[in-house]
């Protein structure tokens, strides 16, 4: 069997099968187990590397030819496969608490398979097409039957669709730049197209207005899942471009462009988050801020450190967003709304869900002892080493996210006197939130635990990884 069949074909087929299964819990369990199995296979039998198990020798062929082109997943992709399917298993398991397994698991599995295909297609320029297909599959995930599609969803569709033509055309022009003598006009044209394509794809400032709108209209858990997975692959595609084209890799302007765009995105998100009164919108701004942080990491002069920071942020981000959106979904069922006014005093009825929201928010703001702290601290230190201004703005944005976490806490604890403490969360909800919170603290206290998994990730890039 070939690697594309295992990590792309099987999940796609299973996604269709899961969609027609009658029981939501069964879908959640099967989806979680399959995602875990795919992560496990990637761990124990990396594609393209023969493994001996007793008398058996197993080899997963890395390539598959489709319509004259290669779809290849080799040993360099091993870590990303483990990471992506591991994160998927966590989110799919979370549907036991949120109850949206049919959408999140079945369509989510299809989205992930298409995104993995975007990683595997050669030449990598065609990845933009597969990312667009994943976006289209995400539409029913974000607007399940019975809901009304709002402006946020339409803008999501428009913006993400715009990214594809820009990236494909930029790829074509860049190939010309790489092949022939450097033509300044052509370089500028291709760079502008590339910038526009990734600005739409990664939803940087000011092309991210759809994220808060979408978070207001759609299920927080579905939005959290899609906006954890999509930007991750968008960033990997961006890194592929930087890795593949030497003039881009060695460009003196690229770090300053990335820093400016990253800081603008981060600071606007951080400051605007501080003034929100809607839990969905707060998550949205935190997600936007994370994109800014990733771009800032890529802007560091030492590309190796930048890559390490970028990849080390993947797990804390997925964990924090998972805990955050599970907790919000639990409270939403009780309050019926996501505005602050509906959540006053809920800490005594839903202490774990409220703790989940506050701690996940603090984790993404880079609070000490929590998962993202060591990595954000490293990034902050590196930024300060360059200049104090970026470090100042980084601190200000983090402060904005801190402030909104404290405001949320204040709202949750506004209960009348003599209110009894109770815990109305169900057992699966309690277990998931507690596990998530323990994970957030564990990664904050022992960041080295993620090292064996993540340290190999840069190896998927031919030049950047060296």
């Amino acid at each position: 069997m070939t690697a594309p069949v295992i990590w792309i074909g099987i999940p796609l087929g299973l996604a269709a099968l899961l969609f027609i299964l009658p029981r939501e819990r069964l879908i959640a369990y099967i989806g979680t187990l399959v995602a875990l199995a795919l992560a496990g296979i990637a761990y124990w039998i990396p594609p393209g590397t023969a493994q001996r198990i007793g008398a058996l020798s197993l080899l997963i062929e890395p390539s598959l030819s489709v319509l004259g082109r290669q779809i290849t997943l080799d040993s360099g992709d091993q870590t990303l496969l483990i990471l992506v399917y591991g994160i998927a298993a966590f989110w799919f398991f979370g549907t036991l608490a949120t109850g949206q397994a049919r959408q999140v698991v079945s369509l989510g599995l299809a989205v992930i398979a298409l995104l993995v295909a975007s990683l595997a297609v050669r030449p990598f320029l065609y990845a933009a097409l597969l990312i667009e297909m994943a976006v289209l599959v995400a539409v029913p995930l974000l607007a399940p039957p019975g809901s009304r599609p709002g402006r946020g969803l339409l803008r999501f569709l428009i913006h993400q669709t715009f990214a594809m033509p820009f990236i494909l055309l930029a790829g074509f022009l860049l190939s010309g730049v790489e092949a022939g003598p450097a033509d300044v006009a052509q370089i500028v044209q291709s760079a502008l197209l590339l910038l526009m394509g990734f600005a739409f794809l990664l939803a940087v400032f000011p092309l991210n207005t759809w994220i808060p709108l979408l978070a207001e209209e759609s299920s927080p858990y579905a939005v959290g899942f899609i906006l954890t997975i999509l930007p991750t692959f968008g960033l990997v595609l961006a890194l592929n471009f930087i890795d593949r084209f030497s003039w881009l890799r060695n460009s003196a302007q690229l770090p300053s462009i990335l820093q400016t765009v990253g800081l603008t995105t981060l600071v606007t998100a951080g400051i605007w988050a501080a003034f929100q009164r809607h839990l969905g919108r707060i998550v949205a701004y935190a997600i936007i801020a994370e994109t800014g942080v990733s771009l800032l990491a890529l802007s560091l002069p030492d590309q190796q450190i930048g890559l390490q920071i970028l990849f080390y942020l993947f797990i804390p981000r997925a964990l924090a967003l998972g805990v955050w959106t599970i907790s919000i979904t639990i409270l939403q069922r009780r309050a019926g709304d996501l505005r602050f006014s509906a959540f006053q005093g809920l800490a005594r009825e839903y202490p774990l869900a409220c703790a989940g929201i506050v701690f996940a928010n603090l984790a993404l703001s880079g609070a000490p002892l929590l998962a993202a702290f060591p990595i954000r601290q490293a990034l902050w230190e590196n930024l300060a080493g360059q200049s104090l201004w970026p470090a100042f703005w980084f601190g200000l944005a983090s402060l904005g996210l801190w402030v909104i976490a404290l405001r949320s806490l204040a709202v949750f604890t506004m209960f009348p006197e003599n209110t009894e403490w109770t815990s109305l969360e169900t057992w699966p909800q309690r277990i998931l939130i507690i596990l998530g919170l323990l994970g957030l603290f564990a990664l904050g206290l022992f960041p080295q635990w993620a090292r064996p998994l993540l340290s190999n990730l840069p190896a998927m890039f031919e030049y950047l990884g060296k």
Partner: protein
Amino acid sequence: MASALSWGVVFLLIITSVGLLVSREWRWSMALLAGQYFAAFWLVSLHWPLTMAAAKLITGWMAAAALGMTQINAREYQSGEASWPQGRVFRLFSAGLVLLAVFTTSPSVTDWLPGAGLPDVTGAFTLISLGLLHLGMTASPLRVTLGLLTVLLGFETLYAAVENSILVAGLLSAVTLGLALAGSYLVILTSAEEAP
């Protein structure tokens, strides 16, 4: 002769895309969308083998059919657009301005893309810019889908001149169909919500 025919096709693209912008009746919109794909097929067939170009035409017609069938079954959704101004004269005037910009800029863009002739670039830019104008004037799922399909078709026409991979043709067809299906799904949701 071929060049004159190509310019004739560009004229057809202008008619169909302006028609899509102005038309309020979904049946006309579907017919214009189908005509748009036919015109683009001609431009694409100048660069691609006929069978591959025909695949694009058929995909486009399938997309139009999917949207049309959804509209037949859905409750008639006449989007009372909230934004101002809404009149046909305004839309025609905007389209005229956009077309002026297209005809001004197309010759210089032809230099960027070796292999793409002036009719290709003008036709593609007409579709892209009028599709963008369409997207800027609507918040209705059906109209948004039509706008996106128009923009995408413009890009495909341009991209066909520089890339003739079968995989890309297949993936672009899948994206076109996927977009039409996603649009149909959104139309159904909107219609179900509005039903009494």
